[in-house]
């Protein structure tokens, strides 16, 4: 499963499976008809490869000094100390002990930059690859990936968003012009089953089936009087929902099936449990999972707050890498750890750090990424990138490269304007290969 061979697969679902075909096949699924005949060889190829992606989004903008680019000894570094990792020469901030152990499988980019210093716009940019433009609703990364590589005959949602509730959550950006078909399926609390997937009290499976049958019969007159096209569309979603309700794979959402020890390992907090849920979902066949951890906007009391958040992020991220690796899924799962920007080298009067998009750190693992590497570097005080700058478009191209998506493919907005998946940039070659 090399990245090179993946790139040979040109993925273009929409070119071969129209929306209506998709709806029909979704409807056919419940009627017991197979979907495979409507899929192309390319799509089958991808389905076998089962590439997946997990985005760990650190809302608010984590400090690079307190995470993956510590500067102990420099005035800008503050009191944060650095620890050794499993890889000689790579040192990271001290709370990240679990990540340090997995460092052979994780690559750091210390030369990330982004031209936006405002939360919402930077969050938008880091999720879509584009800044907001009047009139165009760009899709978020999860929707892009789901539209490109998610299998069509799968009875769970292909894009699941976990947590991230609040002002800096990436979830405020939806599927944009790609349509609700690729919208995130939202999970607020990973400890509970998703909303509305269980039949209401007093409704047995048998009664549910009778109700669906009754509904189908009662729609006939509306369909025949002129509503047929709308009924066909609607029924596709109803059947999709009914399949989900009845799917044995629903148990992937049920964290109580994990041992207490495993759950403890990931951390008993929303982010840690979200990471565990992400692992279960990806193993079940979900294509994209975004897990949010907010609170990194540390204008005040940066050091204590960053340490608390780092402890949570460290356990979730590292155990996700470890488990996927031990279970043989890491090669096919790209994990991205990032915020919308970094934080200022200067420590402000409130012992905090402010927004700093010019030079910050992100981490990547799996999906063909070679771990144990550091890309780029910053100056002694962390003010400037001194080597190998990586922009947002470069990051998006890197994601595409890992997942086998053509970054130059053009999608059409509702007014027919072609929008490339990524505009500009190149994938970071040094992250792949030997």
């Amino acid at each position, binding site marked *: 499963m090399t990245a090179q061979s993946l790139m040979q697969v040109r993925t273009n679902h929409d070119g071969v499976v129209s929306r209506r075909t998709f709806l029909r096949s979704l409807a056919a699924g419940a009627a017991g008809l197979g979907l495979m005949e409507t899929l192309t060889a390319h799509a089958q190829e991808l389905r076998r490869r089962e590439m997946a992606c997990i985005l760990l989004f650190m809302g608010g903008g984590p400090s690079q000094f307190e995470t993956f680019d510590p500067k102990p000894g420099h005035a800008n570094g503050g009191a944060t100390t650095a620890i050794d990792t499993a890889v000689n020469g790579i040192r990271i901030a001290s709370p990240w002990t679990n990540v340090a152990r997995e460092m052979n499988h994780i690559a750091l980019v210390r030369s990330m930059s982004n031209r936006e210093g405002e939360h919402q716009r930077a969050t938008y940019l880091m999720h879509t690859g584009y800044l907001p433009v009047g009139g165009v609703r760009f899709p978020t990364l999860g929707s892009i990936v789901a539209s490109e590589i998610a299998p069509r005959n799968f009875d769970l949602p292909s894009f699941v968003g976990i947590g991230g509730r609040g002002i800096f959550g990436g979830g405020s950006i939806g599927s944009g012009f790609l349509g609700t*078909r690729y919208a995130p399926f939202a999970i607020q609390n990973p400890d509970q089953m998703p909303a509305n997937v269980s039949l209401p009290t007093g409704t047995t499976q048998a009664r549910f089936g009778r109700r669906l049958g*009754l509904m189908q019969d009662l*729609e006939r007159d509306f369909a025949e009087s002129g509503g047929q096209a709308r009924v066909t569309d609607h029924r596709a979603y109803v059947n999709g929902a009914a399949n989900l309700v009845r799917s044995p794979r629903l148990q992937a959402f049920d964290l109580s099936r994990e041992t207490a020890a495993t759950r403890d390992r990931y951390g008993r907090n929303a982010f840690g449990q979200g990471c565990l849920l992400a692992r279960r979902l990806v193993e079940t066949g979900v294509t994209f999972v975004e897990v949010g951890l907010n609170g990194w906007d540390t204008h005040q009391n940066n050091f204590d707050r960053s340490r608390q958040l780092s402890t949570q992020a460290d356990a979730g991220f590292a155990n996700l890498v470890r488990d996927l690796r031990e279970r043989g899924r890491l090669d096919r799962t790209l994990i991205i750890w990032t915020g919308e920007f970094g934080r200022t080298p200067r420590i402000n009067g409130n012992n905090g750090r402010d927004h700093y998009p010019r030079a910050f750190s992100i981490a990547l693992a799996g999906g063909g990424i070679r771990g144990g590497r550091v890309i780029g570097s910053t100056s002694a005080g962390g003010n400037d990138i001194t080597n190998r700058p990586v922009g947002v478009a470069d990051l998006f191209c890197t994601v595409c490269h890992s997942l086998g998506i053509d970054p130059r493919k053009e999608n059409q907005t509702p007014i027919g304007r072609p929008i490339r998946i990524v505009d500009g940039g190149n994938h970071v070659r040094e992250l792949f290969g030997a």
Partner: protein
Amino acid sequence: MGVFARFFGQNAALGLFAGLLLAAPLWAQETKKEPKKPAAQLPVGNLDAKDWLKVSTKPLEKGEIDRLVNAELAKVSIKPAPPTTDEQFIRRVHLDLTGKLPAPADIVAFLKDTSKDKRAKLIDKLLESDAYARHWGNYWRNVITTRATIDFRLTQVVPQYERWMTAQYKANKSWADITRAQLTASGKILYKEPDKNAQAFFLMSRRGADSITEIAAETSRIFLGVQIQCAQCHDHPSDVWKRRHFHEFAAYFARYRGERPILEEKKFVGVQLISLPFGEHRMPDKEDPKRGLAMNPKFLDGKQPAGAKPVPSTSGPIGRGGFFPKKGGFGKGGFGRAGGMSDDARRKALADQITDKNNPWFAAAFVNRMWGEVMGQSFYSPIDDLGPQKDAMMPTVIARVSASFRGNDYNIKQLFRDILNSDAYQRQIRPGEPGDEHLLFAARNPVRMNSTALVASLTSTLGPLSSGFGGKFGKFGGGGFGRFGGGVEAQIRNEFLFDPSTKAEEIEGSISQALILMNNPQINQKIRAQGTNMLGRILANYDDNTEALRVVYLRTLARRPTDREAKRCLEHIKSAGSRAEAFEDILWALINSTEFQMKR
């Protein structure tokens, strides 16, 4: 039928009016598949600004819309669908004008009414209702918010904007007045003064470095129906509006900087519009995007604001950053600090030029949008993309209707009266229509109701769904995850929300939507045939199943069941264990049905 495909397969103007003789932009339309029948058959064409202005601005005569539409239909030998029954009409007109289902008693009374003008009277009555004003207030809220990135500080004033818009509709303010108020707004919106200055929300919906170009693009799209932002970065070889035109238009907003929060004692207390006393908008240099040419404000017709003195357009560095220019951003090599017009004067000039009676786009954009909203299909599609060289279905009709709208000073209620009293509006849906093609207004296109109307329908069917938290004007809106205010109403509002500028056939459902209506515990609690629930009361009041069924249908679908439906339901009642359970199943099936969510 292939009409839709053929419609968009057309490239050039078709001679109904002499259009701009340019090939359609490459990206103009997506479908170019089917071989077309002789092109001249379709009532499709392209209008030039000059042509619009030649059309009479007199009030529309009774029946005039139908004479125009039917003449076009006759040319292509398409027979219109039959008129709606009273039962079909009352549901449609209620949903279209007020976003609410008619009450069962109103349906029964309307069916009994034998007066000839009862439909016109109903239209007038609904236009005077509070629900009408609220529906359109909510509509415009969604037009703006679904395309903006709105943070938590601004989210709080969204309901204030909705109330402001509602008040404008209630007072039947002209569309020109409503537009002008928004484009010339300034100052603050304070959380503690919810009914003050909320018209400034539109301009506050953008912020930061690119607020100028974003608001320019949105202003053009919403008020002119022109998507000039396509020219922001590139000249398109076949588009009449070039990059320079976009940036000249953006220059009206050169000193505008969008929203900034107001912080008092470490608390956000409101939002304000930022306006600078100097500065010019620069069109970025293609070689060096850090430099650009200073732009003079110029409208789409190439005219400068009245009385404006053009300033030399010289090259200089582009200021970036949030609210204020970075060093060197303005002044050096550009316009002097005192040069150019003030922010207020520019936006006032823009409002004047947009609402000018000689600007056809303003009226056409509104007519196209409203016609599309109530008819299920518009002349131009999508409804916010009129030109400059897009083909319209039946250009003669929109030209005349929008000319009359200009003639009556942009009177919104009169426009609704003209459209809704036409036969074209009052036609049935028709079997065999493909669902994603243009029906040429020969039959009604069934489309989804918006999320607010769906909540209202569920509420009028089942009673209030959830109390308190996340209620009517839920604080959170948007299409992503993580923005639920809580409660089933807020869930529905968020999950079913769509951008009102989306083409009807592109408004998609989702599995999450279906799951809510199927399984949500609060909804299912209300479906139960017990206590004071709707079904509990009906079953207690009506021993006869046929009678009870009729009432259930009136409450959910605002019609009586067909014979086949009644038969199927009665069979179900007979075969089910209990009467209550059987009726619960029926109510569940109706609420989950396609028709429940449709304007038809």
